[in-house]
């Protein structure tokens, strides 16, 4: 037996929330991405040589999309569960006939959907600045969807873990931004000295960006199979962690 009604109302509630904060949800990532394109793509990019046959302005598109997606997913999903905890309205979710899986499908599904929409909008925006081509649209879509789901889950975990607003902001700022910048968003890993190339291989975001970039230009730092494997692994790890959190009632059910 699945409580479809509950999943429906949670999903609808979260999507409606995005609608009310439309400016924040859609405009800000679009504006910040446009700024990156103007600075890195047009201004600096024109003076940088092509990377593996791709002009620099185009080369950074997948990385920029990923950057926005990760930030969006995490902030969407973490806030969605943190806020009811903060205001106390979580009591209703906890007392409802609903399983942890249904709660996740509702909240994470909505956060992932929102981010997916933002991702597509950013791609369309990018298309205004550079001439974009996508070699493998289906693989691209697969990466988008997998990234949205797994990082929304990750954001959900942060929202469950955070006990105040400071902690809520901590992970995105302290962890995600460096991982994205050092994950090859703006360069190919081959451009790094050998030692740092090895270090970079421990950065999970590298696999995301590399695989995502491959779907555009067939240019990748690691093979696309490994990329898919890594993101699936990350997804499963997040799922296991959330399952454990709900089972033990971690910061939800004393």
């Amino acid at each position, binding site marked *: 037996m699945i409580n479809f009604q509950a999943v429906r109302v949670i999903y609808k509630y979260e999507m409606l929330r995005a609608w009310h904060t439309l400016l924040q949800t859609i405009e800000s990532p679009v504006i910040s991405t446009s700024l990156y394109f103007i600075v890195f793509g047009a201004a600096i990019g024109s003076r940088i040589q092509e990377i593996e046959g791709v002009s620099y302005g185009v080369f950074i598109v997948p990385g920029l999309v990923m950057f926005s997606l990760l930030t969006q997913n995490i902030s969407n999903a973490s806030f969605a569960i943190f806020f009811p905890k903060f205001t106390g309205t979580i009591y209703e979710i906890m007392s409802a*006939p609903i399983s942890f899986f249904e709660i996740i499908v509702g909240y994470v599904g909505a956060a992932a959907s929102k981010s997916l929409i933002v991702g597509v909008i950013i791609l369309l925006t990018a298309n205004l600045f550079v001439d974009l081509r996508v070699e493998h649209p289906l693989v691209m879509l697969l990466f988008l969807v997998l990234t949205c789901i797994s990082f929304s889950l990750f954001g959900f975990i942060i929202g469950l873990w955070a006990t105040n607003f400071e902690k809520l902001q901590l992970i995105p700022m302290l962890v995600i931004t460096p991982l994205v910048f050092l994950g090859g968003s703006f360069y190919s890993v081959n451009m790094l000295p050998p030692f740092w190339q090895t270090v970079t291989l421990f950065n999970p975001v590298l696999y995301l960006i590399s695989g995502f970039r491959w779907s555009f230009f067939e240019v990748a730092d690691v093979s696309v199979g490994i990329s898919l494997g890594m993101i699936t692994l990350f997804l499963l790890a997040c799922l296991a962690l959330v399952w454990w959190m709900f089972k033990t009632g971690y910061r939800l059910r004393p």
Partner: protein
Amino acid sequence: MPNVIEVQSLAKTYAGGFEALRAVDLEIEAGEILALLGPNGAGKTTLISIICGIVTPSAGSVRVAGNDIIADYRITRELIGLVPQELTLGAFDSVWNTVNFSRGLFGKPPDPAYIEQLLKDLSLWEKRENELRTLSGGMKRRVLIAKALSHEPRILFLDEPTAGVDVELRQDMWKIVRRLNDSGVTIILTTHYIEEAEEIADRVGVIDHGKLLLVDDKKRLMHQLGRKQLLIELKHAIDAVPAALAEYGLERSADGTCLTYTYDTQGERTGITALLQDLHGAGLALKDLKSSQSSLEEIFVSLVSSK
């Protein structure tokens, strides 16, 4: 009446080591109004929270309509509606949306006609488009009640429902509670106002320091524990109770003009006739007589202090 809720040796110790509940046994009959009475921190909210699924019990079990609250949580939670103590509501949702959200959360398909009637009954219909943050405290309380009733529960928990509520809403609330109860809904409410329990409950449970001290029919409780006092005002002050009246255990007021006689309403003989005769015999002239029955509050105070 069959039991709709069966609580067995339920205990809860919070992570910090605080023992909120100690081996509580409680049976709640279908269709009754039960008031859980106790001071702040007695364990009332913990008990309710465990039954509703918000708090995990440390030991013991709870069955709702024969189903275990953990193994069969889907069945038990669907039967229950909870009005929490705090005014915990979102800020930007409309009244209409939040009540419909609650209904869906509890697995019920949308039923606009039912929600409309519910909002009208709670005088919320005019406010249905308002954002929750714009509502007054009393209105928020009404919204919480509407949310708790949105999925047509068979059991309703009201945790301190009248805390910070004005007279009008309190009366409205009791009207709603009685009407729900007439339609067969079991009602459990917590309070530390004794008059409330006295006014509305069928049975009263007294809880303190995590222990259920007793549960009994309200009338029987009042009757059993109820003592009456006879206040005897004297025309002339006395310095001490005359030795001849020693057996009555009279209490003399500080100024000596008043004697208090406490007697059991249960007893075959109250001893009043004999007392009056003896008072006359001792040469005391009476000015006035007054009798009073102890309220639940006095009963409660004596219970809590004696255990």
